[in-house]
């Protein structure tokens, strides 16, 4: 079974890590994460709750959960059961330990800190002005865990040090990097790219290769990463989508083939 695209592989890989009962918050313009939560909802998440555009829904009863007919389409509210936190988005942070989020970035450092602000040493005259933090400073502080999901893997993205940090991951490292400054959320769990899956070493919280996508060489990843990655002794290959996963993904989540083209 090797007839799948890289975005499909990434979506399936993320979906498998999501647990029933979790509340999944998906941000803007992240098709891989959008597909992942829908797929998980259909395969093993009848009690998952999905939040799109502030609309909270459980849609496991639907035959298909297509993209992009909801998500960033305002008609998503058709399926809503309520608005996230009754319209007051940050009124129930206490319960966010059960929430999962997906984050992007224009820079990522070895400790999973991410930057959406910009690139350049002078904040008033950035070389590249980013889109801004959206809700990621608060989300990354409070959600039970999050995934760094990137559509590219290169040395401009993976840098030794972010010019600015908009979401605090594991700071300057160490298992207590978050607890020692009083940040309750569980932090970034994996970073997934078109080349590989990475996690964070238990003690140092430094980024570590977890699996290489089928056909990707270790050397390729090393060269595309602007800092030294930890590499485990045993380095498996990312498990490809099963026939069943691909079938559900293609017929019930992404019938228009957005991820295949991506």
């Amino acid at each position, binding site marked *: 079974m090797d007839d799948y695209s890289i975005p499909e592989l990434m979506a399936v890989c993320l979906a498998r890590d999501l647990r*029933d009962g979790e509340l999944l918050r998906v941000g803007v313009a992240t098709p891989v994460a959008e597909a992942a939560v829908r797929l998980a909802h259909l395969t*093993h998440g*009848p*009690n998952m*709750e999905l939040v799109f555009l502030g*609309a*909270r829904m*459980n849609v*496991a*009863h639907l035959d298909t959960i297509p993209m992009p007919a909801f998500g960033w389409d305002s008609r998503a*509210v058709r*399926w*809503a*059961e*309520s*608005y*996230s*936190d*009754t*319209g007051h988005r*940050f*009124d*129930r*942070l*206490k319960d966010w330990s059960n929430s999962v989020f997906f984050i992007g970035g224009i820079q990522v450092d070895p400790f999973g800190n991410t930057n959406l602000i910009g690139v350049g040493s002078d904040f008033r005259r950035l070389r590249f002005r980013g889109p801004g933090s959206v809700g990621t400073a608060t989300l990354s502080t*409070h959600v039970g865990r999050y995934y760094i999901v990137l559509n590219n893997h290169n040395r401009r993205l993976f840098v030794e040090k972010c010019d600015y940090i908009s979401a605090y991951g594991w700071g300057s490292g160490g298992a207590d990097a978050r607890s020692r400054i009083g940040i*309750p959320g569980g932090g970034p769990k994996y970073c997934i790219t078109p080349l590989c899956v990475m996690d964070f070493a238990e003690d140092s919280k430094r980024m570590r290769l977890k699996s290489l996508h089928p056909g990707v060489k270790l050397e390729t990843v090393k060269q595309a990463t602007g800092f030294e990655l930890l590499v485990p002794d045993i380095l498996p290959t990312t498990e490809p989508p099963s026939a069943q996963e691909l079938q559900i993904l293609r017929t019930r989540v992404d019938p228009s083939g957005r991820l295949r083209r991506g």
Partner: protein
Amino acid sequence: MNTRRRERIIDEVEAASWLEDGMTIAIGQPTPMALVRQIIRRGLKNLTVVDAGFSLDLLIAAGCVRKVITYYAGGGFGIPVMPAFRHAAELGEIEIWECEEGILCAGLQAAAQLLPFLPWRGGVGTSLPEVNPDLKVFTDPIKGETLLAVPPIKPDIALLHAATADMYGNVQHYGGPGWIDLFMYRAADRTVVQVERVISNEQVRADPWKTTIPAADAIVRAPFGAHPFYSRGFYVQDNEHLREYSSLSSDFAAGRTEGMTMYLERYCRRPPTHADYLEEIGIKRLLSLHEY
């Protein structure tokens, strides 16, 4: 693998089994009386209650309460202060965490937002920080103004009453929720909502903005469950019953405990279920409490 969405409807006996002696329990408005009576039936002790008015008085009279977080223990019916509350407070039998509506909101919201405090201006200049040392007067770090720092108020459980909910815990009120209910829900570890009627999930989804509590941990079916209080859209307050209670409570505070003992026995302890309580009240009385 569980392939179905979990339903959240339980009965009042199971709901009360979530409670334990010594817990902090927030009780909403209109009062979830079916659940309050179940607390008394179970004989829970040493509770800290975030509560006001009648149900606070009843729980104190029944011996369930050690500490009270309250902004108001007024009565109505010409009784400015609820008698059992007043009596226990004057004898020092209950500890009172003195607060006020705005301060209570700030404390519940601090808990909901995992903040060590929220600043509040209402109460500056008053005796509140003096009688409640948990409220700290402090100077704000930006403009140097004097404010109160309100610490988190964190209930173990919130017990609320509402008009309707679906089987998945989506609660919708008629005529709005009680003013403090959503704060209690956001702050508490768990929330149990008793409702007049269970509605379909499709009805909920027809008007999602109406959903006031998106994921209650449990829903208890309790028609007439706020009796002797009102439930908007269903019935009005049973003033006759409340007047009778007020008189018993006054007697109780004055040392004439027999009437209150009988009240607690008849309405709270003896009926094994909420339906049995309603039988005791009588269908004629209940139907006379129509809204319009």
